[in-house]
């Protein structure tokens, strides 16, 4: 298992737009390695080349220079995608199929048949919380539901590598939390995940390592704790601390040459608040909020 899950070497992609004299350099001399079992987050502003990079890794777009490999096999080979799942950004599947039919179709593309296929489809619908909506056509799905069926589709062949392009974009906090839980679960099972996002707090929570792209160039890369730790600071969180205790702590700190930089009331996150507030009304069922906003 020393094989890199993903290896990108000297990758450059130039787009030539018809009727434009200037070519667009979407990715410039990119080098990237993702180890097996790692959760890697590719960050960057809009148009920085995240999606292009992912598509090249998956062999959907051909590189101008450089090469990409998945588990040691070149991306231009079909067999490199044998154990790969992909969720494109803003996925849109066949709207004339139901949720269940969609998963069956993708299962068959991965050569699943019979009871293996049936079991897998049922499991996945359960996993992404779409069991109730499985007989609904995708044309009636909300954005969050599409994102979830997309995630289920990416997992249908029990991949060793999952590539997710903005997995939580446009999904409500409950759905986004559920998707992050699924990703955490994939990591538990040793599955490599490469995801792109610009929702930084979410990335912070699930990624082992991140790389930051800007105008097609990888400007920062590293383990998350190392990148964001402030070396000389430590935080304490206390419950029921009396004024006297706080005075004591300040005094101790002053005596030992340390400085109390900030003192504030702990707050909950807006996400927690949102989740608690919306939970009371509609149970814990994931698909509930979308079902209520569905028209007709």
């Amino acid at each position: 298992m020393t094989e890199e899950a993903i290896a990108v070497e000297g990758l450059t992609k130039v787009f030539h737009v018809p009727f434009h004299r200037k070519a667009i350099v979407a990715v410039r001399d990119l080098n990237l390695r993702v180890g097996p079992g790692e959760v890697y987050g590719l960050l960057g502003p809009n148009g920085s080349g995240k999606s292009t990079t992912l598509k090249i890794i998956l062999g959907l777009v051909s590189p101008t220079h450089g090469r990409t490999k998945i588990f040691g096999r070149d991306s231009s080979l079909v067999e490199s995608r044998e154990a790969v799942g992909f969720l494109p950004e803003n996925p849109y599947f066949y709207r004339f199929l139901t949720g269940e039919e969609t998963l069956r179709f993708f299962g068959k593309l991965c050569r699943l048949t019979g009871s293996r296929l049936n079991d897998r489809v049922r499991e996945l619908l359960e996993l992404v919380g779409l069991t109730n909506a499985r007989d609904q056509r995708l044309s009636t799905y909300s954005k969050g539901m599409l994102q979830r069926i997309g995630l289920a589709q990416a997992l249908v062949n029990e991949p060793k590598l999952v590539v997710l392009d903005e997995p939580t974009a446009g999904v409500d906090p409950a759905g986004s939390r559920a998707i992050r839980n699924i990703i955490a679960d994939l990591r538990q099972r040793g599955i490599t995940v490469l995801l792109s996002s610009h929702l930084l707090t979410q990335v912070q929570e699930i990624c082992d390592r991140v790389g930051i792209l800007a105008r097609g160039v990888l400007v920062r890369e590293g383990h998350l704790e190392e990148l964001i730790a402030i070396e000389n600071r430590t935080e304490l969180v206390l419950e029921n601390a009396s004024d006297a205790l706080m005075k004591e702590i300040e005094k101790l700190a002053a005596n030992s040459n340390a400085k109390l930089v900030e003192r504030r009331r702990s707050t909950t996150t807006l996400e927690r608040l949102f989740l608690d507030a919306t939970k009371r009304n509609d149970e814990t069922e994931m698909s509930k909020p979308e079902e209520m906003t569905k028209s007709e």
Partner: protein
Amino acid sequence: MDSSHRLFSFQRILAIAANTLTELTRQKVFYVLLIFALVLIGSSVFMARFSFQQEFQIMKDISLGAMSIFSSLLAIVATARLIPQDVDDRTIYTILAKAVPRFEYLLGKLLGVLLLLAISVVLMSALFIVVLYVREQTVVSETLRQMSRAPREQMDNALNAVRAAGLNIDILAGVAVIYLKACLLAALTLFVSTFATTNIFTVVVMVFVYFIGHLQSTAREYWLEQQTTGWLTRAFLALVALIFPDLQAFNLVDEIVAGVAIPLALLANTALLGIFYIGIYTLAATFVFYGKEL
């Protein structure tokens, strides 16, 4: 889990073909065309009846003609949007990001259309044959009634004449050739749609191909007669014949209406020609599709 890769998997192609067929049957276009064809064939029953020979001839002419036009139209319209639609919806990403070779994707799409065309041609010809059969039986019983006192030999002659003008095996040959033509047009449409930028472009190009394809054999004969043809002209004509298939070769309606028996050799030749064209266009589509930036 079986993780060994198959370079070619019929199961994957079938999955894509079945999906394509579902897509097309769940689109209303298909039903509109079919209903229209059914109505037209049905209406030929109510044609002014001269002699039964004329009636049967008109019926065959109209029905086979309609079948030919509708299957061609269906082939072009249904195929033109398949790939562009998948590209627009990005469904093509999810499919090709799995271990699906691009040629399997194309073959699956084409197979789906060919299945749809087969279903429509079978439905249309079944209706046509039933209608023709019913009319034939009516004429037979009328003849029997009218000639009940005529001598045996004369009556047999009359009945044979009715049967010869009515249903015969050549109709099936005509239908098979119509199906082949539709398949050829579908394959060519698929090829055009791999590089076309809009669906309208594909459809317009295909309508041109349809007309030129029907006219070109006449034009070619004229040319070859007119000039003492040099190799340049011949090369040019060969090229035209490759890009614009000779669709007139797939038209047996005149022979069937005239009641000329269709030789098996002609049928085999036509089938080979059709399969050759389909193969060439599919290869060309694959070639363009592999170089396509998605």
